[in-house]
């Protein structure tokens, strides 16, 4: 891939996101989108892609963090605003979920928590052995009232972890105080893709990395809390959380289709993180799954199985410290439990489809494609058994078909085809798109409006020729 095509690839990703956003959200937001991507230090202070456009998780790097518990509102895609108690970086705007904290294995991590809310708050980091100083004692840890609390721990083991409030968890987690902690394995460097691994195991290497922090909310609780806070700003709200009945579902704090809006969109000031996985064929995509709220969510990823390599920051292996996740297993639905995490390696090649997804004609020589990637003349991981096998369906004529917005005009990867005016548009590069969503399909709505909720799309971009 030449330097030019590298830039093209990155630009293409941005274009696709912008296009999708504009078309899905209509004219209301399209003007705002173009302004996105300004100052972003509060939720993102690191490089999240290498020179080839390969993606790392958005977040804030440590090892020292200052977070502030702060009230605010988030937007849901059907048009509601929901009152939250979120976590801000330093004194920045509150956000949901809390900042994704990214540290390196062996770091001594310090998280200082300030509190602007009229009742105690705290943070717990399951899987870490934390010492807390300041504040006053609580059920699970030291709590911040007026002054700050500082939590300190050694990030001794790499992996994906959850963190969340440790005070009145039944309400404060519901209200938004939840986030993800990522510990990079020793030797990891964002600028050197050869070091990109989830763990100190060979089979945790990845090309693309995405976080899926799954949460839900009961909007009635939030409305009730907001009313009580308005009526008495200094008191702790009295809420019955046992009748919790969720009606919003989020990935990284956003409901679909906002999940696919660009990160840092100014249309979503309190929800900076997107959830729009992208990859090229034959790349490895690390799925970092985090259960952030109170319910389990079965996350179903179309297109292929994924290999579960770790749970709760511990590699699935028969011998701890071994070279591979020898107890890993394949699934197509990842049950994401509250407070727990799963790491899975997803890949997609098109092999085994039974037809040539690159659209080679029968008898087509493999030689012209030498230049693409593979020395055997096949496209990137093209299944040799399917080379030259035509798409098995005769496509209907224009008069007989209704085109979807995701349709590129051709069944072949990387082959956009002419479409009637005002048709298509989400897929200018002939990419393949697969829906990734909660398999509890009640959860792919926004306050009963379908589609929405815990849903996004995987975009498989063809390699640049």
């Amino acid at each position, binding site marked *: 891939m030449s330097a030019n095509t590298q830039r093209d690839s990155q630009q293409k990703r941005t274009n696709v996101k912008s296009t999708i956003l504009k078309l899905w959200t209509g004219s209301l937001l399209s003007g705002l989108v173009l302004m996105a991507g300004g100052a972003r230090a509060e939720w993102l202070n690191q490089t999240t892609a290498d020179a080839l456009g390969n993606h790392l998780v958005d977040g804030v790097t440590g090892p020292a963090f200052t977070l502030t518990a702060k009230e605010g509102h988030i937007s849901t895609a059907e048009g509601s605003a929901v009152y939250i108690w979120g976590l801000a970086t330093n004194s920045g705007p509150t956000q949901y979920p809390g900042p994704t904290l990214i540290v390196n294995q062996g770091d001594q991590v310090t998280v200082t928590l300030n509190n602007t809310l009229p009742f105690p708050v705290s943070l717990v980091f399951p*899987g870490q052995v934390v010492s807390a100083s300041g504040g006053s004692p609580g059920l699970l840890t030291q709590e911040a009232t007026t002054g700050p609390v500082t939590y300190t721990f050694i990030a001794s083991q790499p992996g994906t972890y959850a963190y969340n409030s440790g005070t009145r968890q*039944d309400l404060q987690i519901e209200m938004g105080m939840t986030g993800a902690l990522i510990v990079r394995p020793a030797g990891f460097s964002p600028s050197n893709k050869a070091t990109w691994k989830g763990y100190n195991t060979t089979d945790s290497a990845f090309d693309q990395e995405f976080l899926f922090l799954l949460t839900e909310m009961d909007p009635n609780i939030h409305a009730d809390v907001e009313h009580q806070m308005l009526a008495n700003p200094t008191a702790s709200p009295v809420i*019955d*959380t*046992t009748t919790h009945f969720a009606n919003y579902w989020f990935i990284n704090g956003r409901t679909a289709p906002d999940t696919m809006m660009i990160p840092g969109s100014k249309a979503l000031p309190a929800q900076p993180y997107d959830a729009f996985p992208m990859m090229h064929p034959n790349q490895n995509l690390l799925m970092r799954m985090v259960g952030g709220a109170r319910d389990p969510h079965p996350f179903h990823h179309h297109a292929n199985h994924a290999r579960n390599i770790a749970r709760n920051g511990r590699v699935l*292996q028969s011998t701890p410290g071994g070279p591979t996740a020898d107890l890993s297993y394949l699934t197509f639905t990842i049950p994401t*439990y509250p407070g727990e995490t799963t790491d899975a390696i997803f890949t997609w090649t098109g092999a085994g489809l039974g037809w040539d997804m690159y659209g080679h004609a029968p008898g087509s020589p493999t030689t012209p494609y030498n230049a693409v990637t593979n020395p055997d003349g096949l496209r990137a991981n093209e299944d040799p058994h399917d080379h030259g096998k035509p798409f098995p369906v005769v496509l209907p004529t224009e008069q007989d078909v209704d085109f979807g917005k995701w349709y590129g005009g051709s069944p072949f990867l990387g082959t956009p085809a002419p479409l009637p005016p005002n048709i298509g548009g989400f897929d200018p590069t002939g990419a393949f798109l697969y829906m990734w969503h909660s398999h509890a399909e009640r959860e792919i709505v926004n306050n009963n409006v379908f589609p929405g909720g815990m849903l996004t799309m995987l975009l498989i971009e063809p390699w640049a020729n």
Partner: protein
Amino acid sequence: MNYSKIKIAAQLLVAGAFLITAGQSYGVTYNLRAGVTSKTMPDGTVVPMWGFADDTTAGAGLGTVVVPGPALTVPPGDTTLTINLNNTLPEDVSIVIPGQYGFVRTANESVDNDSAGPYAGRVKSLVHVAPALGGNAAYTWNGIKPGTFLYHSGSHAAVQVQMGLYGAMTAVVDASHAYPGVAFDSSVTLLFSEIDPDVHAAVAGATYGPGPSFQDAELAAVSASIYDGLHAATDPTYAYLYSLLDPDLQASLLAGTGDHAALVSTAISELLGGSSIYNPDVMLDSMLSAATMDALWSAPEVNQPTSPVLNNGFMVRLNRLLLTDALATASPAVVLPPVNTMTSTIRSYAQYFLVNGEAYNGIIGAGGNNIFPSAGLLPGSRVLLRMLNAGMDSHVPTLQNGGDLQFVAEDGQLAPYPRNSYSVFMAALKTVDAIFVAPALPVGVASQLYAVSDRRLGLVNGTMPLGGMLAYLNVGAAVVPVNPMLVVSPLNLSFTATVGGANPANQTFNISNGGSGALSGVSATVVTGSPWLTTSGGAGVGPVTVSATVGALAAGTYNGTISVAATGDTGVTGSPKTVSVSFVVVAAPVLVVAPTSLTFNAALGGLNPASQTFDISNGGGGTLSGVTTTVVTGSPWLTTSAGAGAGPVTVSVNLASLPVGTQPGTTVPGAITVSAAGVTGSPQTVNVSLNLAALSTPLIVAIDTQINTGGNANVGTTHVMTGIPAGALLVLTTQNQYDGVTAGEQDCNVTSGGNLTWTRRVDAGSTSHGGSAEIWTAPIPAGGVTGGTVTVLSRWGTARAQSSVCYVVTGQGGFAALPVAANTANNQSAPSVSITTTRANSLLFGVTSDYNHIDGSTRTYLDTATERLYFNQPGVTTAYHFTAPAATIGSYTEGLTAPTGQSAGTAVMEVRHP
């Protein structure tokens, strides 16, 4: 807990001499009573519960009904559990233990259905029941497995489990092992459950269950008529009952006086008078006659007990009242049904979340009701954490700040590999076992609490925060017991050896005194049945050496136990202890090689044959080591990959390394030796045969095409050829085009360089048109080409287009036979040229250059030529490069029949078969 007599006898034996051995089996019996109790929640709410009591004697009623039920333990050595169940509840109750497979079935486990009535045929219970209100049943399980299990009611479980009929049943391998290989020092049980007080109130208030039910159409019609007539727009199931029971009637019933039938008739008549909705005939026939009414209303539930249990609509309730009165029972309890009836648990919302039967009272530290165990766990000790979820919802107990829990079992099944995690997802009725290594205490701290909280957020008591499913594990300072305490470490040993091989190295475990005073009467005894296992030492504190002797043991895994006891002091604790020893005897390794012969076929002067493999494997047990793979001296053409252990070995043949003078038609032998010192079956030999044939025809082993167009600069095109075999010949067919300026033929210019010498062999040029078609050759020098590659430079003077093809030809006749046959021609139509070959099986190389640049998109070659390159630059030139076989000596005409109209030069050359 009550032991049967035989069990008591066994206990005495154990206490006396620790003589218990495998093969004996004993039973343990519990007498449980299902009954009513209540719990007071931290917010003051009193919740009616059902639970189990542990009676010393069946029916004695001495135990207290508790929730969760009594912890049922089956001691090591026992294999049978019997539960005698006495049921004082108003519903049939039973007991199941999922995961204990030795349940002894009685004759009618699966037919315990309603025999009659509206639900006849419906399964009510998973196993046979202890009937309501005093019934008894016995349950027996054989082959009790060690592990953590839930026992709970198997009847109407949606209600009865929620009401509290559950508890923990546990068994261990021995006093120090929860499962085989899972050692522990102490255990803590965390049993999670929930309470929806509405369900409990409805069950206690007899308003739980389905709505009105009628057995015949007439009753249904009557019900509908009354209902519709009185409360057409309202729904509560019992609204019509309220109306029916007018004050006069209620008072009369409560007092137990009066003519009830008449009163009811009158009441109904009054209430229904004037309504046009109901069918008067039905009402008159069935309601206004007291006799009919009694008969009718007696039908559904004649045998219904007097306590308020079921509600099948107002007919049943009224009937019960009348019956009660008719039986002249004193002060019959008339219970008006509440409006807030609960028909099922489908909409149950838990309000209280319990650990070991208690919702957390919100007090941190001392005074908290959620600290386990109260005495404190020894820092550094291995704590077996038994977690059970008896609730209807899932829970995620999460350990804070305590490091990893090591999860060793699920549902009482030992996991093949332990998993480390800070939390675990527990579905309803799930059990999980984890090892919690109690952390060391900070200096100066006497005890420390580690929270285990529900990450599904059952952390409230109703609407009150600071409650629910939060437990603390209590790690306390090591308190030195006042008496001697037997401490043995480690509790697991594992040996490995080979059949017939050397004995494994001895191992030790240590005996020490964790308490006060002196430990006396210490003994370490190998439990009978493991003659391969011996100990030395063990008569007091200190190390005990354990030896495993292979002897004549066959391959397999042998398990033995060493019983350690200290019997010299009456107050000694921690005795006895059991050390588990496993001895894995593996079969000796056997060197196996397959296949033991390989055959390669190749043509002398041709390409190297494809590599082949043979496999080295271990045909026995253990580990195959010290493997070496060597080629027997004298076969420099034969090489192998490392072959230093089990796995495939790649064998390669390099024809260039064959001895000088090797002739085609022969077979060259070679051999490879695989050996492993001291291993059975070593060494092994793989025989290699290389069959050499002669090449049947000159062979093109590499080919490269180049085209250069545009501009008049004197720029060449380069063929980079690699891997040229010895004895090969380079053949270059090339053509260029007249530059339009220079007079005469414009010859190609091929430059010799390095140790490569190029010679133009054929030249078909046109002086009138200036272009040229030529064939050049260059032999590979005897020493080969330096660096393993050869660069062929082909260029044209100042012509405007040029194409060339470079071939690497092996198996050719060699340049000693020069000159090669060659011919040229200049044609004005379709170009062709004839050549007479000089040997059979030769190969012809040709090139045609058309200075008239006719479009050759549609072209036809003469003979059986294979096109190697077609090149057309409109307005400049057209070129055809081809090869053709020539099987016999004779004349061949090569070229094209189409397109015509060319002005072409054609060059053809024979490269001879040897």
